[in-house]
């Protein structure tokens, strides 16, 4: 309970961060409850009711196929959540072991971290695009492509924080008492990585939204029949003057989600151990 309240304090102190948290919970609930709360089928077409302005029946209007924009925006939250969770999961599952192993076994680390540096020689979006060419299009491959980009930053942060931890007196004390590497890693280093990585996760989640939206917009992400916010924006382009609301709602959802995640990340960082703040401030972004 103490742990929970210590995480909640920064949110109660900053009202804006609290708003971010509330919005985020809202997006998650919308994604989970999409089939229950959507007024229409997001894929149901209505040729007679195309490009309707927002009205009482269709709060967010309809698109060029007469599909309900509100329902599609709500279903879009599902994909946003899937992409965010997938990218964070992949980046953490690969980046954290690379970072920790590199600190514990400096010889291996030298090679692994050089490889990570090498991957960072490729600009983020270009790396993702190159991977899409190799892997092919689709939601899973978009997650992998963006995940690889954030694998590098996650590994870097894990490495620099773990390196600091390794030099701490409590780790040294553990070692002098005869603890082996495995013990030090699981009992001393990894538990202390949780808070900085939680902050990193919130930023990666936010950047994953923007990255996935860009891929969808370029036609290289989720297949066009899936209602994602990026796909909706790509389609809205052709009706930009006739139906500007089609441009507004999906874009606003991307901004709201990414902005909230950034607010939450900032609040979490503020409660973080000051020793790790610099690492995250400088290396969290690719």
């Amino acid at each position: 309970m103490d742990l929970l309240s210590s995480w909640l304090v920064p949110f109660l102190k900053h009202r804006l961060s609290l708003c971010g948290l509330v919005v985020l919970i809202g997006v998650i609930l919308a994604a989970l409850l999409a089939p229950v709360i959507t007024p229409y089928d997001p894929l149901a077409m209505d040729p007679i009711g195309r490009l309707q302005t927002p009205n009482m029946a269709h709060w967010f209007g309809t698109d060029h196929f007469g599909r309900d924009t509100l329902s599609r925006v709500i279903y879009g939250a599902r994909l946003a959540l899937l992409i965010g969770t997938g990218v964070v999961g992949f980046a953490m599952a690969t980046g954290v072991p690379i970072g920790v192993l590199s600190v514990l076994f400096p010889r291996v680390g030298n090679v692994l971290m050089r490889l990570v540096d090498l991957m960072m020689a490729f600009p983020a979006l270009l790396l993702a695009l190159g991977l899409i060419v190799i892997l092919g299009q689709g939601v899973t491959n978009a997650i992998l492509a963006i995940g690889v980009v954030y694998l590098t930053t996650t590994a870097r942060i894990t490495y620099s924080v773990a390196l600091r931890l390794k030099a701490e007196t409590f780790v040294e004390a553990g070692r002098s008492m005869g603890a082996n590497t495995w013990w030090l890693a699981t009992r001393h280093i990894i538990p202390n990585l949780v808070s900085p990585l939680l902050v990193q996760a919130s930023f990666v989640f936010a950047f994953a939204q923007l990255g996935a939206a860009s891929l969808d917009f370029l036609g290289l992400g989720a297949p066009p029949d899936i209602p994602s916010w990026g796909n909706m924006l790509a389609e809205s382009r052709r009706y930009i003057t006739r139906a500007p609301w089609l441009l507004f709602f999906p874009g606003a959802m991307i901004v709201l989600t990414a902005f909230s995640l950034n607010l939450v990340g900032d609040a979490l960082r503020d409660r973080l151990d000051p020793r790790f703040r610099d690492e995250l401030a400088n290396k969290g972004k690719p």
Partner: protein
Amino acid sequence: MLLNFFTSYAMRRTGAAAVTMAAASVIIFAFIHLIPGDPTYVLLGDGATPEQAEALSKKMGLDRPIVVQYFTWAVNVLQGDLGKSLFFQAPVLEIIADGAETSLLLAGITMVWVVLIGIPIGMLSATRQGTAVDQTASGLAMLFASVPTFWVGLYLILIFAAWLGWLPSSGYPSIFEEDGLYNLRYLLLPSLALAAPNAALILRLTRASMLDVARQDYVRTARAKGIRPWQVTTRHIFRNALLAVVAAFGFTLAGLISEAVVTETVFSLPGIGRLVVQSILRRDYPVIQGVILIIVMLYLTINLGVDLINRYLDPRVELE
């Protein structure tokens, strides 16, 4: 003496960049081989005849060990031969050069916006820390850092091109054609869209860096000596805070190269970024490989340049 230290740093830093480039070139070479399918058909397209395939296979030395193939490719690249585009049936380097003017001008104008918006507002925000001005500027900066550039771009098109009719919404005729420099107006909206998140980043950084420097002892000393507050801000705080900002410029400029992919697509600009996307959609693999190579080279060169400038400005900077 100082110059000697700098020269030694510059040589080590340049060497490190060359090693990274060499290593990156291996990955870029492997790219064609990682795409599912026979590399000759990947490069020639499915419509290639067996004779053409055999000729290319011979040129690339596909029957020889992979290491030899890499060096054959690397020698070709060093001689400016990046292969031939499947779609345009022209040398890849020529096609990339065609898009260079647009992309470089776009990046240049964007950087002007980033500097003009990011630095002054960041300074203002730092000198008025905690006030409504600071909170508004910081809030907006964070908001713009969360906005997809293409969304900003589409809104700029809607407002300034479609509704007001002040500026063109797409395309870019070269400044060497009719109307000359007046054609730069085509890049105004794209550069603003591209600048939005980057100016936000520089604003936040300028603010944070100035606040950090303002806490230093020498600033307190300067104040104690009775130097006027604006002089302390400009001469003592700003100059030192600029170091971190200059480092971020390289970061931003390099980032622009890949972010431009989306912006050039939104505004249908004939640049390198749009070329990548179209080549991916056309499966024009030699062009994709060439563009990746050129962009990575640019990216590493910019980062190298910025590191050298930074070390020149601040001799305390060391290699990581």
